[in-house]
């Protein structure tokens, strides 16, 4: 009788370890997959930018510095590795692109060419996809991180070679900025 109880307990523990281990591995793969999703979109963005630059170059020759900023931000983003560094480089690229698009508003005939409008649509869509893929990645990564730290799953975390996944923090100053409220203009009598 005693041995049966003991065997049942051991079997239960083994089953739980297998389940917890598999759960962690599955989450880990989801995190990897989530990152791949982002990566595909980042590559696409990097490929689109030279096209855009070449298209607007002729018309916007004296905005050279903005174009250069985009190109160098792109090159830095391609060279970036790891979540933190990629996030920062891509954030900078987003800002540089934003400035470029803001400038194209000043060139109505440039906006009128179908090519630029198309490229802008493609880049907007790619940027949205990066954003949504980032949401998905962060969700899964948070789940994975929580799981491997929670008791009792943390006991098998070493077995599953689980280590915390880095989250894609938003580095974009514009998205983070706290609005500055200037009250000086509202002074009574001013």
């Amino acid at each position, binding site marked *: 009788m005693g041995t049966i109880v003991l065997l049942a307990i051991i079997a239960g523990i083994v089953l739980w370890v297998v389940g917890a281990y598999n759960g962690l591995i599955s989450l880990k793969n989801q995190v990897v997959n989530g990152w791949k999703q982002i990566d595909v979109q980042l590559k696409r963005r990097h490929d689109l930018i030279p096209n855009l630059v070449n298209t607007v170059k002729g018309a916007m020759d004296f905005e050279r510095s903005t174009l250069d900023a985009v190109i160098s931000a792109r090159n830095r983003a391609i060279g970036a590795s790891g979540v933190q560094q990629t996030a920062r480089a891509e954030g900078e690229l987003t800002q540089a692109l934003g400035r470029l698009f803001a400038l194209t508003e000043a060139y109505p005939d440039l906006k009128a060419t*179908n090519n630029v*409008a*198309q490229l802008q*649509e493609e880049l*907007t*869509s790619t940027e949205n996809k990066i954003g*949504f*893929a980032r*949401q998905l990645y962060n969700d899964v990564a948070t789940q994975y991180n929580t799981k491997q730290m929670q008791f009792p799953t943390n006991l098998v975390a070493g077995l599953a070679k689980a280590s915390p996944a880095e989250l894609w923090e938003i580095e974009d100053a514009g998205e983070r900025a706290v609005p500055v409220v200037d009250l000086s203009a509202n002074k009574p009598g001013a």
Partner: protein
Amino acid sequence: MSDDANLFAQQESNRRRSTWLTIGFVVFFAWVGFGGDLAFWLLTTDAGPGSYRHVFPFIGVFSVLSAAFICWYSWRHGAERVLWSTGAWELIEPATPEQKQLMNVVEEMAIASGLPKPRVWVVPDPDPNAFATGRDPATASVAVTEGLLAALSRDELQAVVAHEMAHVRNLDIRLMTLMAGMIGAIALMSDGMGRMLGRGSRVGRGWSGGRSGKGGKGNPLGIVILVLWLLTLVVAPVISRILAMAVSRKREYLADATGVQLTRNPMALASALEKLEGATAATASVTEGAAHLCIVDPSPGLMSSKEGFLADFVASHPPIRQRIIKLRGMAYQQAKRETAGALSPQ
């Protein structure tokens, strides 16, 4: 996590509803068939020798078999039929910037919802509207009208597609597509039976006249059942449509909310709905059987703009005004949260 649990519960309840719908549909057809058999059997038991006796319930067997076939067909080909009935064509290689944008937006929402990209269809209709259909996310289709592409901005289009992807994700499409097939079948059956009876009654008059000549009186139970049976045939199409609309109405609020979770932009959906409401023309290509699939009622002006008990009962969609008010509320909550987050100590 609670979102996941909620989603799972939604999918489960839609699976359950789909099963009950199918069972109810078959039971209804069984009643139509065997009820008719029963009535004719009771009416012909005391018929004299040589005259017709209704012994084998062939109406019942036939109608149960056809109900089973219709269920199977709606399950396998319901989505194709719905798309076919609207005259939609599948968008594979986008040709115009608008079509390219639609394709991009669908891809974005597929990523946001974590689902495979659905097939994209365009309905050649100038009235703005959209719907989703299919069995599950893998076989899903999202269709929008040409009018929608022309009328909405990028953000608004994204909001509408997100609403449709919400229907796909919580399996509303399965229930709604099955329903579309069954509504069509019931309408067809009621029509066909009515026509058959119309012809039959002319023949039947001679038959019942002969019987009454023999002094036999009709079995009263048989007559009661016959009347009930005829009544079912008459009201079935109406009831089935009301049922479909009652189910779809609740799903619309939910899909609005889930769609907004995907885009995080409630105001875009609110302004899209405003534009859809403003377009007062009917979406001619969407037939009544598929009305409950659409994001806004394809035949507006009747009930969708009215509020109150009767409107609640008959309209397939909640009044657009109420949906917009709810979305504005979400936008307000979101803005409040964001301001609170920005002002909180770092």
